[in-house]
């Protein structure tokens, strides 16, 4: 059944590639596994659309509209990234930045990472959720330090310590929830950690404990989401790791972490019945947006730039979830989708651009459009999409979020708008000279794989003008489910 396939494929892939990961055809194999995973995810989606939520393996796993679309998204981006990493990694090899051993590690860990994320998304057990998140951290740490340069080691170390410590807080939060749930659900152990059960009885959970638990969970998973001021690992890890990893970190891991936060928020809000969690989320969101917008101004490294832009967008999404309500949640989900698509697309082009220029410093990347129109246009359109230019989907999401903010939190709207303006100036001001102008770089041995880029951007464009009804319906259910009041 597709579910086993979904979780089994990456594991198998990890094992297989752990052995053959250095072969000439390993990249294709990697892509193949990702493709199978994606197919499984699609099949699963079809089934959900047909039959609604499912619980499998003694309720240990469950799929509902909220996580199924994230599963599909994850599998999809995972697949396209695998496609992109084929030529990219080859070039890295030819540049001699990687040894075959490292390539094996890379492929194995890539699959493992996919697995942990899918596990985190699909598990019904918040304890396992925690385990999977930690697993995701561990599998990516080694990918971040893949080049073994001093900088990458430093980035990896920070990533490891900060996220490790954060995750530890999250564990304590989980313990507290368990503790509170035990009173209500009773029964021996396991069921008291199953989200479905908790969700059923959330109103009975002891508020004081839950609020404390939420703080720990928020700080814990929030660190992985990259909410300011817990975001400090993020730019380093994005900048120093290999670009495909930056793409999946930005595009997927942050989403998954946010997913965890939202799941917890649903429980806690249910038990508190107060606005406290929402307020915290909105606070974090605003702080992140503003700080990230200002940080954007000082960037020299192109990957750091877009890493901060991820922080900014995560802030926006968190703010939207904080506002709650069907529209805001809908917008937040839409934004999650378009952000991960756009941002990964951008990282693809950035990867090629940096390879062409032989540097990640923006001052040294020039005239992409004359050098290779596809890369140039990819980066230009991607950046325009990410800064919220219509008719791309990001604008649609931001439109909904802003209008809802005007309705529910008028005081926050001007702040958001100002931050968006500042971010626009920063990002666009950096991207334009890179895309336009004269250049001195020369061609690459391998042709860039830009199909993923334009596929992503096409989807984003479509979402800006037309959200397919079933997708919309699906978002709506999810939005209602996560506290559409």
């Amino acid at each position, binding site marked *: 059944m597709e579910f086993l396939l979904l979780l089994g494929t990456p594991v198998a892939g990890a094992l297989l590639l752990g052995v053959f990961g250095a072969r000439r055809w390993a990249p294709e194999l990697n892509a193949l596994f990702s493709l199978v995973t994606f197919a499984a995810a699609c099949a699963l989606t079809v089934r959900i659309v047909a039959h609604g939520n499912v619980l499998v393996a003694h309720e240990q796993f469950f799929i509902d509209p909220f996580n199924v679309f994230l599963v599909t998204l994850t599998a999809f981006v995972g697949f396209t990234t695998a496609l992109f990493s084929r030529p990219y990694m080859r070039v890295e090899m030819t540049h001699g930045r990687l040894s075959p051993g490292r390539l094996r590690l890379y492929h194995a860990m890539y699959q493992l990472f996919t697995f942990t994320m899918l596990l985190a998304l699909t598990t019904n057990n918040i*304890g*396992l959720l925690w385990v999977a998140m*930690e697993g995701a951290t*561990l599998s990516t740490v080694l990918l971040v330090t893949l080049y073994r340069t001093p900088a990458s080691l430093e980035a990896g*170390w*920070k990533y490891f310590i900060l996220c490790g410590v954060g995750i530890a807080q999250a564990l304590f939060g989980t313990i507290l929830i368990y503790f509170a749930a035990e009173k209500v659900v009773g029964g021996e152990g396991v069921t008291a950690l199953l989200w479905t059960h908790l969700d059923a009885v959330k109103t009975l959970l002891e508020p*004081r*404990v839950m609020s404390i638990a939420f703080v720990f969970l928020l700080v814990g998973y929030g660190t992985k989401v990259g909410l300011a001021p817990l975001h400090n690992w993020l730019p380093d890890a994005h900048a120093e790791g290999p670009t495909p990893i930056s793409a999946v970190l930005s595009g997927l891991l942050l989403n998954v972490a946010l997913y965890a936060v939202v799941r917890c928020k649903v429980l806690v809000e249910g038990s508190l019945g107060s606005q406290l969690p929402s307020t915290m989320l909105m606070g974090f969101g605003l702080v992140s947006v503003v700080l990230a917008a200002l940080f954007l101004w000082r960037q020299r490294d192109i990957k750091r730039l877009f890493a901060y832009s991820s922080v900014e967008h995560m802030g926006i999404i968190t703010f939207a979830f904080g506002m709650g309500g069907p529209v805001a949640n809908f917008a937040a989900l839409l934004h999650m989708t378009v952000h991960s698509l756009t941002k990964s697309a951008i990282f693809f082009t950035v990867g090629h651009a940096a390879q062409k220029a032989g540097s990640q410093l923006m001052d040294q990347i020039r005239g992409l459009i004359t050098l290779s129109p596809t890369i140039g246009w990819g980066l230009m359109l991607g950046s325009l999409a990410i800064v919220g230019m219509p008719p791309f989907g990001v604008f649609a999401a931001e439109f909904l979020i802003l209008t809802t903010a005007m309705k529910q939190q008028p005081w926050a709207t001007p702040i958001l708008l100002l931050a968006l303006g500042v971010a626009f100036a920063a990002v666009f001001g950096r991207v334009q000279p890179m895309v336009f102008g004269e250049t001195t770089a020369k061609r690459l041995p391998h042709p860039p794989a830009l199909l993923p880029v334009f596929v992503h951007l096409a989807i984003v464009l479509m979402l800006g003008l037309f959200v397919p009804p079933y997708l919309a319906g699906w978002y709506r259910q999810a939005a209602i489910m996560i506290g559409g009041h």
Partner: protein
Amino acid sequence: MVHVPLLLQLVNTCAAGLLLLSFAMLSQRRVVTLVYLLATQGALLCLATLLLAWRTHQHHLYISAALTLGLKVMFLPWLLHRLIRRLDVYWDTEPLLNTSVTMLLGLVIVVFAFGLAQPIAALSSTAARSTIGIAIAVILLAFMMMITRRKAMSQVIGFLSMENGLFFGAMSATYGMPMVVELGVALDVLVAMLVLGVFFFQIREQFDSLDLHHLESLKEKP
């Protein structure tokens, strides 16, 4: 005054011991000693688990006690010792915050932790509910230790002691987590340590020292 059975008194004593050890770690600068302290902490944790298991006849607590013994008392300290010997990092340099101030702050944090624990303990029906505060205190102190230390090694030790605190918290609040999770957590900790081991060598070969001030180059240039 309500009468507390002997076993629980023992558990509380262990808890007190844990707290004491955290303070000791906060002040200790000799890395090897830190490892010993960590091992002792693990041992106390294990002992407390056993006592609780015996009193409450929760059998899965025996397994987690065994896990603790194997992982936190034997394997990890051994691993750390090996690393220390291989990388000869015996001493941590002066912490960022001098010891006396750290101690005072630690005291404040303990008070805060106990205050935080009140509502939780009030609900708890477990035998060892009074020790939840101590668990939180241990976590926060470990956190502080990580903040104040300059060597990668001592930071890792702080991280592990935080794990101990979490473990103790889980146990005193809810007699431990379900087995699945316990195993998962243990596995993660194990992997984490192995990864760290690899890390240390990489860092070492790059910077030929585990001093953290080498790891401060990635920042926003003013």
